[in-house]
């Protein structure tokens, strides 16, 4: 599995993603945002961080980077693209995913572990999870409040494109379990074709028992498995 980790000025989870991809056997390379061409890769990862200092809006400037044209082409040709945190924000700004990530309704930057429910275990990112499995994964964001227009939200639900939701220990989508005010506790969504996943929580920070959780590992092994079967 040849993996590209796109690095923008201000990315700060690029090494975590790099290491996570390596941990599952990925032949991983950093690709600077001004480079061009992603044809030789199997998977593209957009890391978290504060690209361009979150100036204007989170992800808005990074979306104009030269490499994003290649990311869009890669995604449109069916290649798997995962965006985490700022990567999710960039995917929304670029139009690869619908909607937007607004300021947390808590008015705070939220940095803590959250519980996620796996809504779809049949995507190329989640096949190694069980449907309904509860994961413990950290979040660290100020703008993770997912929203979109009513029609888009209805489409996301109707097409089953919500992959992860914030839940409580009982696995319910309660208001208390929602760290940022996201509509219907949405933590991660895919595009219509299912090959682009954006999520606010950081699976790449849940790869080792020593760091509190290994619940992120299956996301990366799922991608490996999807490439072996395709």
């Amino acid at each position: 599995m040849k993996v590209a980790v796109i690095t923008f000025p201000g990315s700060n989870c690029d090494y975590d993603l790099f290491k996570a991809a390596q941990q599952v056997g990925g032949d991983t390379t950093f690709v600077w945002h001004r480079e061009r061409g992603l044809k030789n890769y199997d998977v593209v990862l957009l890391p978290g961080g504060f690209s361009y200092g979150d100036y204007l809006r989170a992800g808005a400037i990074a979306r104009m980077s030269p490499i994003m044209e290649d990311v869009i082409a890669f995604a449109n040709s069916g290649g798997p693209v995962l965006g985490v945190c700022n990567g999710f924000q960039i995917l929304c700004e670029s139009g690869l995913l619908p909607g937007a990530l607004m300021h947390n309704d808590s008015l705070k930057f939220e940095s803590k572990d959250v519980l996620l429910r796996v809504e779809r275990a049949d995507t190329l990112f989640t096949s190694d999870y069980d449907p309904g499995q509860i994961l413990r994964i950290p979040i660290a964001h100020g703008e993770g409040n997912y929203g979109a227009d009513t029609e888009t939200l209805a489409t996301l639900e109707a097409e089953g494109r919500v992959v992860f939701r914030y839940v409580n220990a009982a696995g319910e989508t309660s208001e208390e379990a929602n760290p940022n005010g996201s509509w219907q506790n949405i933590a991660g969504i895919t595009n219509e074709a299912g090959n682009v996943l954006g999520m606010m929580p950081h699976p790449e920070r849940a790869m080792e028992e020593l760091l509190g959780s290994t619940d992120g590992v299956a996301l990366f092994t799922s991608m490996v498995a999807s490439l072996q079967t395709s």
Partner: protein
Amino acid sequence: MSQYRLEVRVKPRPGLLDPQGKAIHHSLNSLGWEGVNDVRVGKAIYIDIDAESADAALEAADAMCRKLLANPVTEDFEVSMVGTPEKTDS
């Protein structure tokens, strides 16, 4: 070609939570302005541009808003002419 100065106002769409506005609202209330009922925070972006005409300058700014300056999901925008850089740079 003439020089124009444009003001672009980007503001959160009605009904959307505006955490900055909410924080300022609370602060104003606690400073004693109890009559303040709501605060919304947007941003103003000033653009100096060379264009064939005022209309062309406004049209360009409109395109800039659609492409980069505003996110249509969460923000509305308005563009207005505020003069020329020479006149306003005093």
